[in-house]
């Protein structure tokens, strides 16, 4: 590449429905560098890059690409300038092959007849060039998310991308896949591509980026070379206040006296086997494992969603055997699913309904009659306790809240229902730093009140920060028990075989 790609955005402003989302932001992206764009959820990262990709029109400000000042940028113009965005939800055609997907939109043809040989050859050349080995004839639906991402990137490069925007690309990737993606990104950088890497995972920034740019509440609050900043400074810039490094919770001042859940020699098909796991009152147990290690299935079994194929499980004070979630709830067990949108929230219903759902029968008169007023009162009990940031309107639909606030409402569900045992799966996935700290505080508070908590997670920092002891799973079996000071990021990673 002869000239260096340069994108200069100056004074970008944008508002939605009267709320200013971007308040005069400047951004520079240069060929051959990786820029990390940091910020909490709602800081304006996505809006900013969508303006760069031409999806939104800025209300004020200017964009200059390769020395040319552009007054308006529409998607076609952005493409022509070489800007490509790789979305979190990948838009590939999953039922087509790898080769077809790489070449999507530019299949070689003569008089409308596709030349399959040329297509395969070109796709193969591009993938070789990028140093990735993928079966050209495999269907994309059979590939892992990481591999699909590579295909998306390959397609972008094929159409002469000069600037790649990656929106939280590692959200669904395993440890090794993240490593591979980073190496891949660096290779692209060295070829002169400008990379804008959006994330809210701080540990990734130092590894992948050359420069960093932090947004908070729609304004730039920090920018410069990554090497100039330490983690704490970036956190402070993101949340606007100092947040300590990963800290262990204070040790328990008393031992659990009642067992609230115990798996004994339990197995469930090939998902997990020979499992012994106990949770007592007043303790937080972290169940740590990578995706596919069996932790998700353990959580489901503990709530009666999945049946054991052998061994036994008792939950609650009465040691009930579970067949379905109804029995689990009756035994005072609560469950926060990993995927909030798919399994957790009733997006178009009100926050009050969402919070009261498991408690409807108990709240209702004669277990039958309930009104919005009864629900509003129940919601009022928890709105402040949980620190939900909204206008305390019980009728507001939960879909209008940010991810962190939705999660607080869903946690409140089980507070209202009076659960004695909570199974929380990935409780802070897709939640910003501030809300994360508040959710951890709520979890510790619950434990202090005698609730037993099982935090099932693939985030080792989460375990360190919130759990009294940790159980690590690999390939369906427990590989380590860690207690007290043993619970560190390093030991967790080691036990999980990373």
């Amino acid at each position, binding site marked *: 590449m002869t000239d260096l790609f340069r994108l200069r955005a100056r004074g970008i402003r944008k508002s939605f429905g009267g709320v200013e989302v971007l308040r005069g932001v400047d951004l520079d992206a240069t060929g051959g560098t990786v820029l990390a764009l940091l910020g909490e959820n709602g800081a304006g990262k996505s809006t900013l890059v969508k303006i760069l990709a031409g999806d939104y029109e800025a209300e004020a400000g200017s964009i200059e690409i390769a020395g040319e000042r552009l007054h308006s940028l529409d998607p076609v113009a952005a493409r022509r300038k070489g800007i490509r965005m790789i979305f979190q939800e990948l838009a590939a055609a999953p039922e087509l092959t790898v080769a077809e997907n790489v070449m999507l939109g530019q299949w070689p043809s003569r008089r409308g007849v596709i030349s399959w040989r040329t297509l395969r050859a070109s796709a193969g050349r591009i993938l070789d060039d990028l140093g990735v080995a993928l079966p050209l004839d495999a269907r994309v639906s059979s590939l892992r998310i990481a591999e699909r991402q590579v295909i998306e990137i390959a397609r972008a490069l094929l159409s002469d991308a000069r600037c790649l925007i990656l929106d939280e690309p590692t959200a669904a990737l395993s440890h090794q896949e993240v490593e591979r993606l980073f190496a891949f990104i660096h290779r692209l950088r060295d070829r002169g591509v400008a990379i804008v890497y959006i994330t809210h995972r701080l540990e990734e920034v130092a590894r992948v980026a050359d420069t960093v740019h932090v947004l908070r509440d729609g304004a730039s609050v920090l920018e410069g070379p990554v090497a100039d900043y330490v983690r704490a400074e970036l956190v402070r810039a993101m949340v606007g206040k100092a947040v300590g490094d990963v800290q262990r919770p204070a040790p328990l001042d008393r031992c659990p006296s009642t067992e609230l859940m115990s798996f004994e020699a339990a197995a469930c098909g090939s998902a997990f086997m020979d499992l012994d796991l106990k949770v007592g009152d007043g303790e937080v147990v972290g169940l740590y494992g990578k995706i596919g290690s069996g932790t998700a299935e353990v959580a489901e079994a503990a709530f009666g969603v999945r049946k054991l194929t052998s061994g036994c499980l008792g939950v609650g004070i009465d040691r009930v055997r579970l067949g379905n*979630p109804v029995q689990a709830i009756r035994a005072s067990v609560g*469950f926060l699913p990993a995927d909030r949108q798919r399994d957790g929230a009733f997006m178009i219903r009100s926050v009050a*309904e969402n919070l009261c759902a498991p408690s*409807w029968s108990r709240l209702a008169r004669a277990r039958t009659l309930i009104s919005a007023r009864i629900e509003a009162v129940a919601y009022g009990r928890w709105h402040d306790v949980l620190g939900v940031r909204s206008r305390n309107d019980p009728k507001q639909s939960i879909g209008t809240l940010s991810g962190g606030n939705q999660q607080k409402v869903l946690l409140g569900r089980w507070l209202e229902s009076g659960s004695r045992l909570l199974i929380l799966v990935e409780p802070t996935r897709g939640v910003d730093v501030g809300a994360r700290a508040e959710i951890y505080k709520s979890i510790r508070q619950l434990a202090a009140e005698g609730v037993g908590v099982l935090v099932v997670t693939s985030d080792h920092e989460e375990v360190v920060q919130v759990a009294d002891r940790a159980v690590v799973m690999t390939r369906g079996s427990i590989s380590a028990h860690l207690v007290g000071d043993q619970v560190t990021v390093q030991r967790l990673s080691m036990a999980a075989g990373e």
Partner: protein
Amino acid sequence: MSILESGREGYARRILQRLPDSAALIVFLVAESIFFSIKSPYFLAWDNWLNILTAIAVIGIVAAPGTLLMTAGQFDLSVGSTTAFTSVVMANLALSHSLGLSAVVAVSAGLGVGIINGFLVTVVGVNALITTLGTLAAFRGLSNVVAKGQTVGVEGFSGLGTDRPFANIPVPVLVLVGVLILVWALMRYTVYGRAMYAIGSNPAAARLVGVRLRRFIFVGFVLSAGACALSGLTLTSQLGVGSGLFGVGMELSVITAIVLGGASLSGGRGSIVGTAVGLMIIGTLNNGLTLTGVDPFWQDVSRGALLIGAVSFDRLRSRLGA
């Protein structure tokens, strides 16, 4: 300004806040009424309003539990056949048995269709569209088999359909109002109603908060069939006959009314107030077209256009809102 007045103003505002979804509908209904009242001198007469209400009574009784089902993301296309089936069972039995016994058996037969629908959807797991499309065809046929393709006369059963016990209002209209109020209360003030909204808006999440999905949906189909049985008896009483041809195309009117009323086909949204307004719009349109001497075939055209118009309007609105 006195306290009373400010309180009133607040009340009015609250009503306005609650009505944004139905407001467009009500405007449409009023415009429709003004249009027909200019075109026909009879339109605004009290007796004509009673005609309109009587005409929508049968579909309205069925649309009430239909709304409940749709909020749970389900629907029942077999309503017309269930209505006809109930009516022919009633009329055939009444030839040889007492009216009371015949009615009890006929209602049970109607409920039976609901039990079949509910069983297929919740236990076997067939999708509601296919299930009720199947029972729509099967019970239409069965009704004609039972009635041997004839209309069967019923003696002395005209009370339910034609009596006017109160303010000259026919019984079916009173039944309609009663059913609407019952289902409204069920949806608004019971755990069951809440759970149906939850099921429609996210079935997976509903299961994880302990909602007994299958049981509740099953009950929904039985309620729908119960309403069809009631409408079947009403029709039999009104016309003095049972017929396998009752309720042909009823599902179109019922679903149009529910969707006009703001219910979402994918579930989670819907209200009885909306459905009631939707019913009035359909009733007014049919009545007005008849009064102004339009060919009755045009009524089908208008109903179809109304259904598509209502859904298109909803799509446009949600797209603008997003």
